[in-house]
């Protein structure tokens, strides 16, 4: 009989964003290894989607109470459950209770800011009760272990994986023209334009564009993504670098590989990335990248074959790094190979095997 996972997540199939993508990658990797997974999301509609074998996703319920009741009912029907997967710490109380009710192992997944900022006592104790905690980056793990009392061996890192569609090569014919870009070099940033995510580093890049244009008069900074901070950022760009920034708004996933292939350098000096999968996607398409010091960026920019990490507050360093990398041509895509799906799936399955090899925990633990 296949091993069974009950997954409580914020979103997965039928949703956009890095965490939804990560969950899909993880569950597909585990389902390949003969694991049956029932996903209980709060967002996302998977109606009509052909989910991989072994994976089922219930209808999303956003309301907390409704979600909790439905989760208990679904969990009871899904017995026997080997593992309860908690995709976000805000669901930890529910995941913990269901895991103990069913005598299942309790797996907490963390991504970044949610465990950097929420350091309440209850959260700490719910994380400490986990049989395994996985994080996407070493930095998230390091920060977590500064305030949570878990043995180091129980907190494992499972980094994001790069989709196979991200490969080097020219953009499809007519793509660049469709963006109406000039002949000069193109800097690219792909990120949500959210007021709560100003750490992404758009403004530091805007602030060095004028200086860059002294060396590259036709240089353009392409900003992909949308959000509640877009109008403000457009105003800042118009003031700091008039005519140098092109806002594309939301770009469909299918167009991202061509967008990366069109650009000359990926620039996102973000200081709070949980991981920064976009850096790897860009590098997989042959782009060199500039990341920001802080957060999990160092995990996505492992060495100089991919790019460089700078402190966005140091404008001179940012400027010289951009100029330097623009002169180096394309990145070495082999540097991204360890992040490909094959490696991710093997690591995920090994981690799962390790978890289910542990005896079930009887005591409450908190």
């Amino acid at each position, binding site marked *: 009989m296949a091993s069974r996972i009950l997954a409580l997540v914020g979103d997965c199939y039928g949703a956009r964003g890095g965490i939804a993508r990560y969950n899909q990658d993880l569950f597909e990797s585990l389902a390949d290894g003969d694991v049956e997974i029932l996903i209980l999301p709060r967002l996302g509609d998977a109606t009509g989607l052909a989910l991989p074998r072994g994976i089922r996703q219930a209808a999303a319920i956003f309301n907390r109470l409704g979600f909790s009741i439905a989760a208990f009912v679904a969990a009871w029907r899904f017995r026997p459950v080997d593992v309860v997967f908690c995709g976000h710490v805000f669901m930890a109380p529910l995941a913990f209770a269901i895991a103990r009710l069913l005598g299942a192992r309790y797996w907490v997944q963390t991504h970044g800011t949610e465990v950097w900022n929420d350091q309440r006592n209850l959260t700490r104790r719910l994380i400490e009760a986990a049989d395994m905690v996985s994080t996407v980056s070493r930095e998230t793990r*390091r920060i977590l*272990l500064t305030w949570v009392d878990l043995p180091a*061996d129980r907190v*494992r890192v499972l*980094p994001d994986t790069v989709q196979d569609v991200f490969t080097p090569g020219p953009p499809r014919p007519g793509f660049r023209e469709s963006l109406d870009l000039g002949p000069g070099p193109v800097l690219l940033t792909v990120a949500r334009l959210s007021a709560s995510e100003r750490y992404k580093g758009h403004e530091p890049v805007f602030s060095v564009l004028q200086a860059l244009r002294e060396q590259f008069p036709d240089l353009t900074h392409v900003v992909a993504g949308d959000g509640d901070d877009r109008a403000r950022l457009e105003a800042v760009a118009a003031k700091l670098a008039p005519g140098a920034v092109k806002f594309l708004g939301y770009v469909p996933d299918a167009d991202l590989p061509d967008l990366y292939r069109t650009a000359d350098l990926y620039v996102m000096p973000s200081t709070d990335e949980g991981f920064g999968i976009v850096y790897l996607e860009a590098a997989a398409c042959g782009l060199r990248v500039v990341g920001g010091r802080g957060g999990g960026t160092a995990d996505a920019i492992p060495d100089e074959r991919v790019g460089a990490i700078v402190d966005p507050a140091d404008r001179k360093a940012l400027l010289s790094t951009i100029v330097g990398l623009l002169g180096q041509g394309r990145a070495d895509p082999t540097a991204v190979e*360890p992040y490909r799906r094959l490696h991710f799936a093997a690591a995920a399955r090994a981690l799962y095997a390790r978890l289910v090899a542990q005896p079930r925990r009887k005591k409450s633990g908190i």
Partner: protein
Amino acid sequence: MCGIAGIHAYLDVAPPVDRGELLRMTERMAARGPDGSGMWFTDDRRVGFGHRRLAIIDLSEGGAQPMQADDGRLSITFNGEIYNYRELRVELQAKGRVFKSESDTEVLLQLYAEHGAGMVSRLRGMFAFGLWDARKRTLLLARDPLGIKPLYWADDGWTVRFASQAKALLAGGAVPRDPDPAGIVGFHLLGSVPEPFTVWRSVHALPAGTTLTIDATGPHEPVRYYDVASALAERSASGRHDPAGARSRLASALHDSVRHHLVADVPVAVFLSAGLDSGALLGTMADLGARNVSAVTLAFAEFKGLPLDEAPLAAEVAARYGARHVIRTVDRAEFENDLPALLDAMDLPTIDGINTWFVAKAAREAGIKVALSGLGADECFGGYPSFKDVPRSVHWLRQLSWVPGLGALVRRGLSGAIAAGLGLHPKAAGILQYGGSWAGAYLLRRSVYMPWELDELLEPSVVEEGLRRLAPLSRIAAALQAGTPLGDFDRVATLETSLYMRNQLLRDADWAGMAQSVEIRVPYVDPFFLAALPPGDVLAALGAKDAVAEAPTTPLPDSIRYRRKTGFSTPVGRWLRETAGESTPQSIDFSVASRTWAQSVWRAGWLGPTAA
């Protein structure tokens, strides 16, 4: 005895092992191994080992490390000595295993090939090693049963690193220096950092008597293969409670242990104090035919003419057993001169180790590479006041401690009175609150500061988090878990052996000895020796210390046997006060000295960028 280091990039995304980092780690431990150095990497650079060698057994290149066996399948970097390696070698040869060297290191590799990780329970000696199994793609880290040899490790989620010294891990440059409140509080409470903590959050001590396996998913939970409480419980259950013959059993166990600890291809000396334990070692060495043994004694100018001066009585013992006696006098000027180097060599903050630093220095100056030490005898034979104080406290105060809030109330009242000049030691205020439980009474006996005093020394947030993570009383109580109840003597022996001796004495003997490139061997710290001794209740009734004096065929002189116990003391407290320009009392108050010294050590700066 050596310095070892290693890096294993276990996750595919981790960069290959950086040779420069490994070199920085091993160079930080240069003093541990002045006779040679080596590095080894797998072809794919996912694993790298470094080694600094102090050659003791098989001085040829055949004993060089890191070493490989089984057609390159197994590789090891090893620190320590395996005293029963010859017996194990014969056993393995009988099974068809072929050896290329005369070293104990190769025995470890072949033994692993035969038994896997379980081989550690066959080893008699002191050891810490990293062993790479290329077929299984696993790294095995192991540490000896009682914690003689240290091993520290760090895991960032992609890559695991290990080394003989915590500071070597930091020197590599890739391990973060986030402070660990548990280790910081532990040091202030106990004068040493209790394992598995260090003062850095990312650096862990591998607990004594455990192994740690790292596979493609990273480090697993350490697996315990030995614990003192269970070993003493087993000894007690052995049924050898008949006092007749206990003395001869003790003498026989000591002879057997010393004989094993003399295995070396270089001369073995002894650190000789005016106590029974080291004298009995020297006498036993003489029984075993060791000739012209060098015996090193430390003396302090301040103690001349006082009972604390160990030199005259030690000279008497040395003469009795025909040893070459080296007396080394240390004064304040030398202490001050050595202090920066001493603090640099100190791997984790500790209030002890100064005596070992100087006695090892004297040994090195005398050309000695290996010396036996009497460390551990007090834990075996009930030589500390704690063997009387702690049980008495528990038996007297247990019922009072059940009255809710009474202990805390009395403590607050007494603290105020003591602060107002009552003339008691500040710790005395906690007698009712702590003295009624084994863990509490032991903490009270061994602590430098008590928990309620820490807020005056450290940030309250550090104290709060540190106490929560450290959970000192639970941690002490956990050491006593043996499945079957222990007697009073064995309870204290367990606590002293698995806490004070391990975290303080053995760690200090390692860093202070190795800083002078001197291997310190401890025949009283040996699971085989412990198991061979009579049970704790028999030892307690026997007056084991007296029996130790009679263990050599020629017993120790009466002047040693009936000397009042002083402990091995240093005038550091006085020197520190003099250096600070404070007045020096006529008598030497060692408790205050340890508090003064603890503060001086902590102020040396453990959390800054220059700590390693």
